């Protein structure tokens, strides 16, 4: 299908189904029940799943394939967001030009950063990208305030020209739309106790993510992707064979920068504002966490990682002490208090602690991330089934 082999097509179809039916899948618990707080099927969160999925897929094209660890990728996302908001301020509230310009601007910026940073590799490359990102962040806060609006963040206003659109509708800012289809529009479907929300913005992002994912699969399977893997495994040998690796790594860098810009543009399309904190190095660190947690170098890993982190960030951080007490209410008082006391530091505001510990465990024990974890589990079961016929034939091809 679409030039993919059977396994990749299967994976792609699975991802299509997952994203298209996400409003159902993420809302398994009926409204008003105790577990309803674990539902993630509301538009805002679902949008974040797919947008950060795009970001992580792009990061993975660079890090997963070439092994270059960029610690400044959020800069491209931030630059893309700013460009997108400006498009909405100057041109039209239609999201297409905003998203396109985000991709283009982020791409151009990544050409510049990549051209300079890629002259070094290893830790030096990480430091250089970090330095560029921090520079963009500081500049956005200080000198570039006319463009970025500093700490307040860049927002739309009623006086914006919007040449191709309208400046205001009934005294308020017109909503971001796709040819008249507002991003905020949702259709709700009530089935018994369940309430499913289908949001235009989510579906737009999901479709964009599917396209991005498809492109990523093609890149992974292309001769170009092969070359990038070769860079990762032994760049020196490539150089000795007389091959200049720079164009390949630069192309990978720019592609992943454009993915970041695309994510930034979509963020703006969903919620038209942009702030400098999107470029801070903690944001760059987050996408690193997502990719590693899910599984760097695998196709599905980054999406899993992004979904995983965003889900737990939203759901875990909502749990507070009283909810914990409710959960453990069936236990004797002393035990209940002790359990709550032990669990409490890891949830709510302490969610980052859990994230840090989880991340460390993954790096230490599962360098391939959640995907490798899944594969190991799968292998374990398969081996058990096959022991009587062919012992030790559990070596499966790593699914990517």
């Amino acid at each position, binding site marked *: 299908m679409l030039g993919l082999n059977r396994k990749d097509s299967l994976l792609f179809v699975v991802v299509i189904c997952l994203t298209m039916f996400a409003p159902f899948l993420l809302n398994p618990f009926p409204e008003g029940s105790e577990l309803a707080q674990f539902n993630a099927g509301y538009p805002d969160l679902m949008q974040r799943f797919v947008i950060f999925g795009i970001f992580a897929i792009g990061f993975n094209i660079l890090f997963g394939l070439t*092994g270059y*660890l960029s610690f400044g990728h959020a800069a491209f996302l931030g630059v893309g967001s700013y460009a997108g908001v400006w498009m909405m301020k100057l041109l039209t509230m239609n999201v297409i030009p905003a998203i396109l310009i985000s991709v283009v601007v982020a791409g151009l910026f990544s050409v510049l950063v990549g051209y*300079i940073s890629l*002259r*070094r*590799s*290893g*830790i*030096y490359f*990480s*430091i*250089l990208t*970090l*330095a*560029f990102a*921090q*520079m963009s962040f*500081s*500049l956005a*806060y*200080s*000198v*570039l305030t006319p463009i970025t609006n500093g700490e307040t963040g860049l927002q739309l206003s009623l006086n914006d020209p919007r040449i191709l659109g309208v400046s205001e509708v009934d005294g308020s800012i017109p909503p971001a739309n796709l040819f008249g289809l507002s991003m905020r529009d949702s259709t709700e479907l009530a089935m018994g106790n369940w309430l499913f929300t289908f949001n235009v913005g989510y579906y737009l992002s999901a479709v964009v993510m599917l396209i991005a994912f498809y492109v990523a699969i093609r890149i992974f399977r292309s001769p170009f992707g092969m070359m990038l893997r070769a860079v990762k495994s032994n*760049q020196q040998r490539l150089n000795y064979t007389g091959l200049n690796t720079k164009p390949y790594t630069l192309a990978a860098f720019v592609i992943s920068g454009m993915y970041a810009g695309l994510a930034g543009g979509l963020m703006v399309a969903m919620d038209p504002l942009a702030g400098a904190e999107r470029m801070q*190095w*903690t944001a760059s*660190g987050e996408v*690193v966490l997502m990719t*590693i947690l899910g599984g760097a170098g695998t196709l599905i890993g980054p999406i899993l990682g992004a979904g995983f982190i965003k889900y737990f960030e939203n759901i875990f951080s909502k749990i507070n002490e009283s909810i914990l007490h409710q959960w453990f209410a069936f236990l004797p008082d002393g035990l209940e208090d002790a359990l709550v006391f032990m669990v409490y*530091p890891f949830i709510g*505001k*302490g969610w*980052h*602690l859990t*994230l*840090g*510990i989880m*991340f*460390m465990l993954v*790096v*230490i024990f599962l*360098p391939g991330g959640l995907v490798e974890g899944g594969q190991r589990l799968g292998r374990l079961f398969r081996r058990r089934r096959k022991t009587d016929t062919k012992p030790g034939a559990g070596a499966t091809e790593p699914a990517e």
Partner: protein
Amino acid sequence: MDALLLQVLNGLDKGSAYALIALGLTLIFGTLGVVNFAHGALFMLGAFCAVTMQRILTLSYEVVDETRTDFLGNPLKVDVPYVQSWFGDSVGGGIIDWAVPISLLMAVPVMIFVGFAMERGLIKHFYKRPHADQILVTFGLAIVLQEIIKYFYGANPIPTPAPDAFAGSFDFGAMLGMQAGSIIYPYWRLVYFFFALAIIGGVFAFLQFTTFGMVVRAGMADRETVGLLGIDIDRRFTIMFAIAAVVAGLAGVMYAPINSPNYHMGMDFLVLSFVVVVVGGMGSLPGAVAAGFVLGILESFASMAEVVAFLPGINQIIIYLVAIIILLTRPRGLMGRKGVMED
């Protein structure tokens, strides 16, 4: 002239902090070959040693003071620190006042313990793994340490004053025979600078003039050969890791009065310290120290009003800009050794 001198002085305290952290980073990198992203967190732990010491010393109980009354006319309840009631007002008060320097005593064993635990428990297993993995796992560790501190101490900065004797500032210009009031400089920053010099001197002397230091230097140059000579180089490198942790911790303790510690101060310093290490040259101790001071002073020059008026925003990005230029023109950094982390 005095304006220039003022900027140099202003740059010294930040430069000292950069130099101390970069020194620790380089020690770890030069010996163990590990890129430690958790080093900023060690700096932060040091600062929180000072906070903890201050809290311990000011543990107090309530006493009813009959001589004074509150606004309702009831006898006033006064918090009296235990230390003050044990040692009397003057000695006890003095001890509380000197909480930050006293916490140096606490920071040393704490940081040695943390350093050993980190190296033996975690980093040991990462010698053979790629640098990217080392960065990632120490990055995770830094997040964990930060969040633990945040859980216990909250997210807000905690003021940790210097002893009263060093609290104010003095007229440095007048001392040099310049116009009075031209250079006003806080005492504590000067203390910090000399403290940093002492620590740096101590580390260098230790490496240069002791047998232990000689073995470590030999190990940095050629680990395998030293191992073949029957010397347990791993154990010494572990000790060096602990020493690097102590250096970072002490730098943090003394920095607490300059900037009130908060849980993410380490990360802010770490990013810059890495830039410093790279500018100085990976694996070069003098390079790290020199680059630390140079960049600190450069940063303070860049924030002069005249410079900012000429090149707006330069004060924010000068360090990164210098790093980019250095990395591209002198790939080994200012004083980098040949063969260390070259690719």
